[in-house]
């Protein structure tokens, strides 16, 4: 791996952490539970790596572990986004008085 690659990865980490801190500090405390389920679904982006490890079929061992990782990530993606949507639908403002 080239040094350029390492430094660009470190830059990505540094910048994304700053963006994360900034954006998440602005999330309303009302929504902290949905926030956690949404970030959970987003970090299941690990599915991308799992898919490659599974699909390369380098060894049977790696393929099986990769497939379990795809399963675990897919579970998080599906349940994470669905439950976030389900919770957010419940947050309603006061209806104007009739």
């Amino acid at each position, binding site marked *: 791996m080239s040094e350029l690659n390492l430094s660009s990865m470190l830059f990505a980490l540094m910048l994304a952490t700053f963006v994360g801190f900034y*954006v998440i500090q602005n999330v309303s405390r009302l929504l902290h539970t949905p926030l956690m389920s*949404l970030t959970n679904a987003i970090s299941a982006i690990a599915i*991308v790596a799992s898919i490659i*490890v599974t699909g390369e079929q380098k060894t049977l061992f790696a393929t099986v572990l990769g497939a379990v*990782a795809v399963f675990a990530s897919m579970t998080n993606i599906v349940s994470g986004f669905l439950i976030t*949507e389900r919770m957010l639908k419940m947050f*309603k403002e006061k209806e104007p008085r009739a």
Partner: protein
Amino acid sequence: MSELFTQLSYLAAATLFVFSLRWLNRPKTARQGVLAGVVGMVLAVVGTLVNPHIVNYSWIALALVAGTLVGVPLSRVALTAVPQRTAISHAFGGLAAGLVGTAKYQVWLGEGELTTFRTTAIVIEVILGFVTFTGSLMAAGKLQEVIPTRPITYRGQNAVNLALLGIAVLAGVWVVVDPSQWPFFALIVALSLAFGVLLIIPIGGADMPTVISLLNSYAGLSAVAMGFVLENQLLIIAGALDGSSGFILSVIMCRAMNRSFTNVLFGAFGQVKAQAAGGEAKPVKSATPQDAADYLLSAQRVVIVPGYGMAVAQAQHRVREIYDVLTKRGIDVKFAIHPVAGRMPGHMNVLLAEAEIPYDALLEMDEINPEMPQTDVCVVVGANDVVNPAARSDETSPIYGMPIIDADKARVVLANKRSMNPGFAGIDNALYSADNTLMVFGDAKAVLGDIAAALRAEGAGQAAA
């Protein structure tokens, strides 16, 4: 060509993930945020599936279908069980990281491709991933009460835990120096799995909001480590977003419990020792649901403080009935939400939203406290430590210094509790024996139902008169 498409899809996904979290800052735009997240995820997955290195799709397809089949029912759990579901998904996130790290180690070991950098990143990924995996499973077990929720402690616990982690790190260094030592790699996996279990054993239910946030952060960091292993910027970015989110939530939870962050990091929390049963039980005054209804009807400003007990009793819909009757009569009703009320950050807000209480009636601790002295009646439903005035005044109390909701400053406090047993942390609550407090004993759901019925009867009686 497909490489360019993949990179562009990753770039778009990273952008959409940032917007997704950005839109979550307000309830009005939050659902847009979910959509952005879904679109980003689909783009990233499609961009990956066209990768020319993928030679076989059958295992992938099988895993995607199985994941969907498990994921859909997991998203339909009762909202009181959301903390457990969250813990399980942290566990799955950690598991994926640990497995991918192990798989890459084995593949690269066979190909002689294990550089120092790769091995280091894999070791970090595997430790973080497997600790998160078993730690989160333990947390989920405690939340579901499959495992005893009381802290399990023994002498030298921290020393044992740190020693285990120390050995795992040493084994990691050994593997980095000589990657062919796969038994040491297996040792790292085993120790990390064990460490995750031991880390959570001493933690009690009341500390779960902090623990879940911390595990959230670990899950994100393990995704970052995976990104370094596979040299994938998208994983690093998404993992960093998740990691910083978990970190911020942990800090908020720590502050709300007056704990230092190092205290949490070393897992030495949740060990509040039950106080020696010193002193006689102070006398408390009790009231019937009918009395409670009378107090509520003569009030102008009412504040309701919900806690985990409300979730356990599934009493949020009864709370809503009371809210409805009172607001229809022009009485001002607000909810005071302590950051650590419940078993995860924001838990109470979701339950009250489920009961269709408008979110503008839900106020944070700092917003409601200045209003407490002007409050006529404060109703405490299943909350305990977060309203204990000892946190303000009693320097010997284990919770001294923790910011609380000033329920005791209201003119009248109606506190619902099952019995006079001390709360989870085993700490006496001075609020219950205060002069202006009336205890309404019984199951929260039943008691609140009775109060709502009494309120309605009263209203009907007045209309008839």
